[in-house]
């Protein structure tokens, strides 16, 4: 049983990093993730970790240093948000293309312009094709748990991919919550020793990282990357299983709530699940058969598993805290809807884009979503495929 503590998401994550004690951290501050590295810098300054901290002069250099460090042959972590992640964008692909299991906390924040420092998923979703495993968290406990699991997932021989763990800016990063920390020894044992593959620092066996890869090999390397993502799925589940044995907290690709007998459901990602659960409970009291599915792993996308979990529904509302301008809808919607296409019959799927730039998602908003779902269930017709929620129009 872990030790109950009260801390913000950022401090929880910094503590996970302290317990992981990575060999190198390279980072650059950006709101709202600043506190993660700030707290971690204190751990370094106080000798609580042995990590070499590289206080880079930009996020681009931070990720570049992470890449150099990971290729050198050790455990590497960092944290960022929004524009910082956007500045890393070029290097995200290089980290995954070189199969370097860097672990990064992304304190999700809206992308500029206009500049906004609050929580939404436009940063993480913008990086969804960068070849990183993406895990999203509902609260500080999950952010802490996910980060520890991310280390083990990324370094697995079948995977060797970088992992980003998301948590909503301010809503999670700056709110104090009760959570349980594992003991330092438990984390140490859980993550194990890092076994470098082809380290640059083995000068007896010189290797070349980042060669020019033309028409004759590039496709095969990308195909191998796709395979690694596929192989990450059983690893994610196995790591979750081991983590449950250690902590008692269960994780999967997603979490369901009152879904089995539901006719309608709301799909969320991140911190909104709590509000959704509350509203769903109230609706259930009124006899409305609605449930929740909270997506945890967005990459690799659990398509088959979502088909199995959602196939019995009549109507599904996918909540996106991010727009994909000019697309059919938000990024989560597009993928979930595509996953359900093969089912016959398949649920009617609608999309709500909400909470951009940290705007609050209230009870009334989710009640509106449930009312819409009921109408779709009763009439069989979708009036609005895409609704902008929590916005003045």
């Amino acid at each position, binding site marked *: 049983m872990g030790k109950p503590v009260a801390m913000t998401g950022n401090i929880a994550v910094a503590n996970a990093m302290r317990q992981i004690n990575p*060999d*190198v951290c*390279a980072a650059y501050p950006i709101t709202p993730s600043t506190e993660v590295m700030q707290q971690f810098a204190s751990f370094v300054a106080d000798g609580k970790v*042995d*990590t*070499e901290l*590289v*206080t*880079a*002069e*930009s996020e*681009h*250099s*931070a990720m*570049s*240093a*992470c*890449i*150099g*460090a*990971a*290729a*050198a*042959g*050790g455990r*590497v972590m960092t944290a960022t948000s929004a524009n910082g992640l956007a500045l890393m964008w*070029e*290097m995200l692909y*290089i980290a995954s293309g*070189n199969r370097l299991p860097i672990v990064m906390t992304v304190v999700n924040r809206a992308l500029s312009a206009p500049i906004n420092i609050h929580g939404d998923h436009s940063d993480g979703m913008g990086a969804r094709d960068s070849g990183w495993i993406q895990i999203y968290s509902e609260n500080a406990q999950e952010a802490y748990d996910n980060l520890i699991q991310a280390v083990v997932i990324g370094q697995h021989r079948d995977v060797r991919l970088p992992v980003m763990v998301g948590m909503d800016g301010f809503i999670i990063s700056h709110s104090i919550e009760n959570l349980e920390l594992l003991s330092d020894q438990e984390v140490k044992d859980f993550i194990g020793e890092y076994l470098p593959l082809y380290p*640059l*620092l*083995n*000068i007896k066996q*010189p*290797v*070349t*990282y*980042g*060669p*020019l*890869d*033309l028409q004759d*090999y590039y496709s095969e390397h990308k195909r191998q990357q796709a395979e690694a993502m596929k192989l990450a799925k059983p690893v994610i589940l196995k790591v979750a299983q081991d983590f449950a044995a250690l902590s008692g907290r269960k994780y999967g690709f997603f979490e369901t709530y009152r879904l089995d007998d539901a006719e309608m459901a709301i799909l969320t990602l991140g911190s909104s699940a709590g509000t959704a659960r509350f509203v769903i409970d109230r609706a259930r009291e009124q006899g409305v058969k609605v449930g929740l599915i909270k997506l945890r792993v967005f990459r690799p996308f659990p398509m088959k598993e979502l088909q199995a979990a959602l196939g019995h529904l009549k109507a599904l509302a996918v909540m996106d805290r991010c727009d994909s301008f000019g697309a059919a809808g938000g990024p989560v919607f597009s993928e979930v809807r595509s996953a359900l296409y093969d089912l016959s019959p398949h649920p009617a799927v609608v999309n709500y884009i909400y909470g951009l730039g940290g705007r609050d998602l209230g009870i009334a908003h989710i009640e509106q979503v449930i009312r819409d779902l009921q109408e779709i269930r009763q009439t069989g017709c979708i009036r609005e495929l895409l609704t902008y929620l929590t916005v003045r129009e």
Partner: protein
Amino acid sequence: MATLKELSKREELLAGGHRLCAGCGASIVVRQILLAAGRNVVVSCATGCLEVSTSIYPYTSWRVPFIHSAFENSAATVCGVEAMYQSLKRRGKLPVDEEIKFIAFGGDGGTYDIGLQSLSGGLERGHDFLYVCYDNGAYMNTGIQRSSSTPLGADTTTSPVGKVIPGKQQYRKDLTDIVEAHHIPYLAQASPHNWKDLTHKVEKALSIKGPKFLNVIAPCHRGWRAGVNQTIELARLAVETCFWPLYEVEDGKLTINYKPREKKPIIEWIKLQGRFSHLLKPENEHILRRLQEGIDAKWESLLRREGEK
């Protein structure tokens, strides 16, 4: 300091068979540097001619550990490698008796321009590495576009000699000066025609802890429009004309390593290169004059600074 005889017996660490042009200045520079550095180095390299021509999968010319990650971050990448070295060394995860050196290569594009921030960050943080800029005065890999190292008046594909504008309108950036402002323990300019000076500078740099910087002229006959066999001659003339002074700054003390007995006029260097051919026309004489003035001013300032106590 290794003698020519000793250097000649050492193993080539940049294998032949790479696809750099015959007569490429960069490969000569790199070979001399690696001969001086020896096997215990990890190399990072910015995107550019050197990188794309020496590591075409599934081949590599690098007989030492090598990493290329992107264009603007050779310094940041090697800083990451070096940070891991420090960390693993401290944790006892690397052989105690094995000392590794770190060298980052970048062209003038990857160093003066897009990689300047990354270089500056690495120098300021004090990582233990040697940064080598092989300066050929333009973005040669993408097809001879101007860089901030391109000399005044040069004809490049983005500073072409047109009907109205006769080539590059600006003086080149003095990167070595910018690096000096970081107050690192050692920095120098070198040239491959003077292998002794260059290899000694590498040996000296690698014997010092902390960030070091070498700016090495690396003639590119394609971009400079000169003969394939003129690389070394062009490097020599760049030094003899004081376009490329050989000097070093060690712990703040400046030493000019070579003073031409008779400083040659810049025209001697210019006239061998097609990129400057328009400067030989009478109507462009003022550009040539400006170019000479800039070179003279820099050389005078170096002489003055060397004399200062």
